[in-house]
């Protein structure tokens, strides 16, 4: 077939340009480490990458939620541990007070300590978190939950709201307990209703001061300690649960990352060998272009 000189030149040039653009694409893939640099490189893959990235980002947010939840639950546990210690001490004093050998002076001294403990527990029940929010007032975090009139009447001003956090795609975990559940809803000594822990402590102190210790106080303190232990056990169970959730999320993240990498990232070995192959081909195209362009009958005229 006849070949026109211009066409020969153009075709040689086109071949070089074409090779160059392929080489550049491989070079871009190698330098970015990504197989899909633009959606058109792999449209279905690009959408899948977005899905996987979204999945990973949401999971990372769950992890952040878990951290927030953990610190709240740990704070609650630490406060309640102190409360438990105080109540244990109050219980020891109550047991001692019931001992018939105690003098009224001893009992008055004990009552004094119990008043001290009552204040301590009250302060603990009115603990604020790092943001200045009350820990045990339910949703009304700006309202001090517990107050007293000083003569044995204790009032809870919070509500029963319990904050939940999203720790997994379908999992919400409560990260706190209301003051009602912790300090108020404690079976009374008679077993007929509820009595808050402060009233129990107040009554204990009053009885000791009057030198008429009542064994009912012991039952009430036992109930209070048991209730708080129960709350702590629940909080601990929640901590365990979100810890497990965290592990699940971690492995989820790993898998999402693997899946994303499989779609998006480049196989370096393959791309590197492709690059050297393509540069070889480009060199061949360039060299042959020069060789062919130098051929002309006019050189011999």
């Amino acid at each position, binding site marked *: 077939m*006849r070949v026109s000189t211009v066409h020969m030149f153009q075709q040689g040039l086109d071949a070089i340009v074409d090779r160059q653009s392929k080489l550049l694409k491989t070079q871009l893939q190698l330098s970015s480490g990504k197989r899909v640099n633009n959606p058109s490189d792999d449209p279905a893959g690009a*959408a899948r990458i977005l899905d996987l990235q979204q999945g990973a*980002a949401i999971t990372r947010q769950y992890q952040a939620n878990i951290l927030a939840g953990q610190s709240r639950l740990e704070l609650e546990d630490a406060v309640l541990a102190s409360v438990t210690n105080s109540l244990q001490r109050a219980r020891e004093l109550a047991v001692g007070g019931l001992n018939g050998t105690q003098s009224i002076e001893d009992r008055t001294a004990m009552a004094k300590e119990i008043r001290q403990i009552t204040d301590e527990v009250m302060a603990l029940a009115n603990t604020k978190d790092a943001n200045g929010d009350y820990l045990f007032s339910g949703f009304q975090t700006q309202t001090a939950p517990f107050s007293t009139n000083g003569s044995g*009447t204790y009032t809870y001003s919070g509500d029963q709201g319990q904050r939940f*956090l999203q720790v997994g795609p379908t999992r919400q975990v409560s990260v706190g307990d209301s003051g009602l559940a912790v300090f108020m809803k404690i079976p009374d000594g008679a077993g007929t209703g*509820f009595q808050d822990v402060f009233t129990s402590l107040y009554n204990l102190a009053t009885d000791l001061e009057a030198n008429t210790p009542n064994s009912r106080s012991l039952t009430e303190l036992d109930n209070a300690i048991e209730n708080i232990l129960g709350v702590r056990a629940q909080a601990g169970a929640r901590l365990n649960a979100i810890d497990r959730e965290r592990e699940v999320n971690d492995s989820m993240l790993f898998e999402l990352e693997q899946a994303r990498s499989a779609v998006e990232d480049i196989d370096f070995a393959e791309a590197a060998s492709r690059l050297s192959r393509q540069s070889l081909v480009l060199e061949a195209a360039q060299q042959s272009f020069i060789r062919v362009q130098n051929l*002309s009958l006019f050189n011999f005229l």
Partner: protein
Amino acid sequence: MADLLGIATSGLLAFQRSLDTTGHNIANASTPGYTRQRVELGTQIPQLSGAGFIGSGVQVETVRRLYDGFLTDRVRSTTSTSSSLDIYHDFATRVSNLLGNAQAGLNAGIQDFFDSVQGVADDPTSIPARQVMLSEAESLETRFQYLNGQLDTLRSEIDRQVTGLTSQMSSLAESIASINQEIVLAMGNAGGQPPNDLLDKRDQMLQELSELVSIRTFEQDDGSVNVSIGNGQALVTGSRAATLTVSGNEFDASKMEIVFQVGTSSAVVTDSISGGQLGGLMEFRAGVLDSAQNSLGRIGIAMASEFNAQHALGMDLNGNPGNAFFAVGASQVFPSNNNSGSGTVSVAYDTANFAALKVDDYVLGYDGSNYALTRVSDGSTVPMSGAGTAANPFQADGLSIVVGGAPVANDRVLIRPTRAAANGFGVLIGDAQQIAAAAPVRISEATNANGAPTNSGNAAVKLNGVDSTFGPLSAGITLTYDAANLRFNYTGDASGTISYDPVTDTGATYTIAGVTFSVSSTPANGDQFVLSDNSNGTGDNTNALLLSGLQTAAVLDGGSNSFEGAYAKLIAETGLQTRQAEIDSEAQHALLAQARESREAASGVNLDEEAANLLRFQQQYQAMAQVIRIADSLFESLLGAVRR
């Protein structure tokens, strides 16, 4: 010998012409559109003698253009397709790279925003967390506006290009018409000999025209060529040319339409234009740009509306119901400038049915008694329910359409439900206190004046949320368990009963006065639960959790896609269109190269061939000169004989 001299002279002349033409070929070897020429030689009329016919030399019959109309046509048509695909691919790449950009794309913005909502859920009283949410909302707004603005820029770039292309086409048509005239004249003057270089020049113009638009050519006997575009609109007829201009769309003056104009009559030909850069641009505008911008707008509408709806069900830090959080973009309605009636059309989104909202545009037409809705993309009719009144609007594809006024038959309006909506997306709340993270209601077991619990059973109730029928509670609602009848009686802001059997119903969900809650375990007779206003409930994150749940809620595309899902789908679609255009354009390049190769094989100049021809014609010229010498020496011999 006189004959021999004549023969030699004819040869000298003929080979001089041949050498000239070869030189011309060499000189024009790289002139675009040049067709190689060849001197066609023939014998001169022989002389009759007693011994028969004696040859009298060579003559130039014609200078022929080695031209194949079929091959040239093929180059032109593949050029049209190729340049159409190239420009389409060029623009589609820009859209798909824009939307797919990891930094500027929408997906990261949506993700960051919902992360910040979860941040508020983690810590609803924290003002910094709320500020972060507001600033993420603002950057989401910026992203919507940026993407939409970029698409708008592409749109006006297309308008500019179309304006330029049409005037370029008009002036090419003009030039072709005038060169037609020259060719007809030249052919007449030359007694039918072809004006080769003029023909090349015209072919080159046709080639340039075919880069702009797909054309059809019809050669006439007088040497002129007629050119038509689109559905047979005659762009060039002999020495007359039509003009192409742009003008505003009958509905939307800012949308450029292509107008074909001959004399005083004109017609809009946008839809029939195909091929070439113009065709590629039109195809891109209708096929990629419109639907991409509509999709983006739709995500904005759905997200803003859904978020607002849930936000309104919450309570902010000041104890007020949530205000509208986002500004929602609006539908555009354009009456045709051909309308003669005074009908009015208003279009709203059917907020209960975002799943049905499409990315299409529509034309609502009135035939004198009925309205009909037509989808612009494929011309299909969309069935509407309802009567078009405010009380009972037309419903179709997630839209509520209310008509009024006095339209007359054949009046039409264009409805673009989502095109400009991304631009209308905005943040309305500026005060972090106004983020409604809490539920407006709380639910508690009964307590006495000191806040001590009074229930004796172990039943618990948990709030799930409120719906749009909820109104603020004043007295609250008290539920009292009636163990004998296994039910709760409730009184207060609302009254009635709900049955609850602890054995079978534990965990069951109930809704009273728009408040949804679940009941579990066993209440004692007379146990009470209270639904009350969540005053001071600043630490409540119930609504923030529900808001963050919208991230993964599948509200679009028939309930199959979340906001990000719809965006991923948009990216996949434009990516696919770009990829397809890339593949098609590569294939078309190969076809074009083939067509050019065939044309060049027939018509292109090969310098080696011309060099060989130079040698050949030079030799023949020299041989002819030798013949003259021989004739001269013959003559000399004869003279010598006579002189003696």
